[in-house]
């Protein structure tokens, strides 16, 4: 029996606002426990929530970027359950009337582009953090710094069919959120979180199978692995004639398997109802249009523009636009010196390699765009050879110095003066009679040996083109 997977992904993204969703506390992620709190976000008696406008604007921005319909009226609802990290005993979220409905993301799969639908996007507040093993064997501690931080929850339709598609969807969504500057997009740090819903059904059928919910997916890899594992587990069950139980499973990355967290019977009845402390959120058309105008060019459009404007390949454009900071870096270089293909090559071949080794962001790179552009220009005007340029580049990467400063300091300027090279060429020919004889006898490949010797003598600074020309002339 052949099965197809039906996967939906739920993303919770922390918004990069200055203050929390319903109070004025800062959203500082790295503060000492319980220092970014107030009576409102710790649920003291008598406190009331007030909506953070900046969070609403980020939600609108995101909704537009994922091609959703911003709802002119949306309602905050109370989601009721008891847990120590939830001070009010309910989370203020949105239920029946979210701020955004619909939308989609186009992802690239092995077989081309696929469109993954998005069901909804809504605003809610984050809960606090429970800390077990915080210095006392029998006690758990709660840190409310995170409690009340604004979140947007984005729910995809059940359109994803493979773990790889899941990974692609997540990466694209994350990319958009980072481009919009609404979220840090870091799964490990927990400001971009993903839960998965997955079921399988015989191919060519319409009816959904029983789905399980996967949680504790802390990296893109974990998402893909957990989905793959779960597909296998469910397939095995069905092939054995058993049923898939509807349950919530935690992905255990160490053991590389899923473990049951709670079954359907233990599932919460959240008793959603509109929060009477908040008025319905009204967003008018003017506000939406103003936000639309502030949308930056997203990766997809930027890549298309790069191909058109700079004549680079699709692949290169995709790599260069994957991170907005890299795309901006590239364009700054090209602005300095208009050789987009050459600069693309330097970034893709040299810079990205170094950055990857050091696990650095392009913004943390010491080489300024102007300097990288300078380096390329120096090769083009024959100030230095391509080989020397690589040396200079390494020094630039380490120290952040300008290329001309390095070339001058180290005396790396390419020598293109034929007369000074000629002297060395003569020296080398005189010093290697055997090879000269072999070359004249027909071993043309030995030219490289002579070039090498001249380059050695000149410490690589001789202009290779001129060396070649002179040698060829003199070795006849």
């Amino acid at each position: 029996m052949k099965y197809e997977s039906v996967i939906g992904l739920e993303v919770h993204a922390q918004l990069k606002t200055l203050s929390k969703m319903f109070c004025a506390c800062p959203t500082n992620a790295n503060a000492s426990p319980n220092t970014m709190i107030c009576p409102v976000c710790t649920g003291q008696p008598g406190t009331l929530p007030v909506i953070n406008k900046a969070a609403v604007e980020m939600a609108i921005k995101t909704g537009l970027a994922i091609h959703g319909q911003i709802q002119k009226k949306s309602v905050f609802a109370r989601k009721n359950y008891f847990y120590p990290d939830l001070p009010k005993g309910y989370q203020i979220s949105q239920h029946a009337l979210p701020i955004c409905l619909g939308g989609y993301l186009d992802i690239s799969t092995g077989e081309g582009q696929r469109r993954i639908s998005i069901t909804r996007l809504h605003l809610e507040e984050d809960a606090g953090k429970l800390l077990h093993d915080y210095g006392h064997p029998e006690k758990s501690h709660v840190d409310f710094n995170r409690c009340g931080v604004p979140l947007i929850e984005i729910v995809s339709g059940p359109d994803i069919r493979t773990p790889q598609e899941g990974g692609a969807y997540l990466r694209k969504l994350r990319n958009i959120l980072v481009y919009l500057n609404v979220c840090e997009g870091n799964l490990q740090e927990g400001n971009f979180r993903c839960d998965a819903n997955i079921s399988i059904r015989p191919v060519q059928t319409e009816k959904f199978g029983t789905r399980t919910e996967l949680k504790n997916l802390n990296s893109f890899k974990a998402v893909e692995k957990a989905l793959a594992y779960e597909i296998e587990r469910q397939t095995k069950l069905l092939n054995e004639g058993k049923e898939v139980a509807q349950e919530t499973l935690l992905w255990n990355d160490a053991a590389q398997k899923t473990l049951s967290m709670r079954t359907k019977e233990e599932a919460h009845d959240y008793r959603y109802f509109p929060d009477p402390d908040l008025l319905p959120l009204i967003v008018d058309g003017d506000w939406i249009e103003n936000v639309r105008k502030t949308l930056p060019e997203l990766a997809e459009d930027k890549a298309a523009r790069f191909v058109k404007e700079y004549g680079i390949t699709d692949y290169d454009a995709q790599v260069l636009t994957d991170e907005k900071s890299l795309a901006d870096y590239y364009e700054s270089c090209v602005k300095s010196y208009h050789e987009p293909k050459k600069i693309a090559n330097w970034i893709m071949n040299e810079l990205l390699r170094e950055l990857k080794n050091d696990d650095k962001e392009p913004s943390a790179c010491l080489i300024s765009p102007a300097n990288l552009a300078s380096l390329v220009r120096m090769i083009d005007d024959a100030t230095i050879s391509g080989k020397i340029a690589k040396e200079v580049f390494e020094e630039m990467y380490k120290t952040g110095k300008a290329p001309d400063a390095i070339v001058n300091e180290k005396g790396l300027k390419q020598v293109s003066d034929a007369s000074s090279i000629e002297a060395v060429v003569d020296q080398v020919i005189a010093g290697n009679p055997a090879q000269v004889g072999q070359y004249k006898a027909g071993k043309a490949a030995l030219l490289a040996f002579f070039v090498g010797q001249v380059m050695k003598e000149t410490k690589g600074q001789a202009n290779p083109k001129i060396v070649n020309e002179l040698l060829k002339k003199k070795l006849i």
Partner: protein
Amino acid sequence: MTNQSDQRTIASLHRQLIRGDVSSVELTRDYMRRIERIDPSLNTYLLRSTDLALKQAEEANRRFKKKGNVTPLTGIPIALKDIFVTKGIPTTCGSKILKGYVPPYNGTAVQKLINAGAIIMGKLNMDEFAMGSSNEYSAFGPVKNPWNPDFVPGGSSGGSSAAVAADLCVASLGTDTGGSVRQPASCCGIVGLKPTYGRISRYGIIAFASSLDQVGPMTKDVTDCAMLLNIIAGFDPSDATSLDTPVPDYTKALVPDVKGLTIGIPKEYFVEGIDSEVADAVRNASEIIKGLGAKCVEISLPHTKYAVPTYYIIAPAEASANLARYDSIRYGHRAKKCKDLSELYEQGRTEGFGPEVTLRIIIGTYVLSSGYYDAYYLKAQKTRTLIGRDFFEAFKKCDAIITPVMPTPPFRLGEKLADPLKMYLSDIFTIPVNLAGLPGISVPCGFTNSQLPIGMQLIGKPLGEETLLRIAYTYEQATEWHKRKPVVR
């Protein structure tokens, strides 16, 4: 020690303080002595903030000396229903579950009073979490009606109404969700106002039912009510449901003239089952108002009979969520020797909440639960809209509506405890006003043969407090009810 007519109203004491007839500290001490002597028999005070009050009184003395920054409330001893969060002063909301809780902030209405120079005498007894109509559901013992200690003072702001009536504070702030300011005011022969929903900030009142709760002044007379309302009304950025409309000077509404006004008398409110003494007192009041120049018309509020069931679905539903925060994790009573989290929650809340609160939390949870939400909560909200529409239609024909406050006079302690439904029905005339978000004021309009107070309610249009104050003031000035005092030993 205060001379003259012993009126002990905000207005008269303010005049005395300005003239220097009495100092704020002397006045405060006088009230403290009275409380010490009289309160043990009434049980209105849960906590007396003696040190704070004297400090505030000294500050008030300074303000009067400098003749700067003086308001009508400066130096006036006020007490607060223990539902108001007060910084550094324990706040219990009438419940064991908050015993020992010391809030880290002042609510907005409280802060406004403090800024105006009022003296905070202490926190007053109340039905636990404002759920009750007799102050018999307090975890700290019932309050006695100063007019007759065998009778209830009303609820849930029973401590407030009794304290004002017995001169244990000059005025008080209570809260009203289904009648909890107006009904106790009626039982104790004082004035109680529930303003338009959103007129006064809810930030800092412990929430019972968020869409119904409102702060209400409880005072000796209508003038004091206007003065207190001036200080505490207004938009609050910390309360998203507060109204962003300017606050007029409510004392300007205190004009003894009702000519040209039309009073509506709802036929559904004067049916069988209302005590004859109550019906008579309210009808007499409407005759007096008519005699003073107003017109009276009969109106209909057809959905009246659905008000109590609607309320007893919506209020418990909101309360079940509002009271979820009392989980013993961050503050409040915590059960001992619990083996896991479930036990910690269950035991703590069982030990901390009284039976009426428990009942309402369970009802509230039920009507919101999956499978029942549509039939109960949603239906109740729709009915609420219809009740509001009744008033909207009625106000096309009149400027204010007159009704009894309670269907019976104040009842005996213990009389309605056996049957919660009987207790709920005492709010039948006040509940619709909360559901519709309208302003309503309770004004003394008579006494029973056994000398228990009877009040009448005036209901106004949204933000119609000025009309209500005007009618109430006109009636009050034409009668003597507000001048009678209970004899308390």
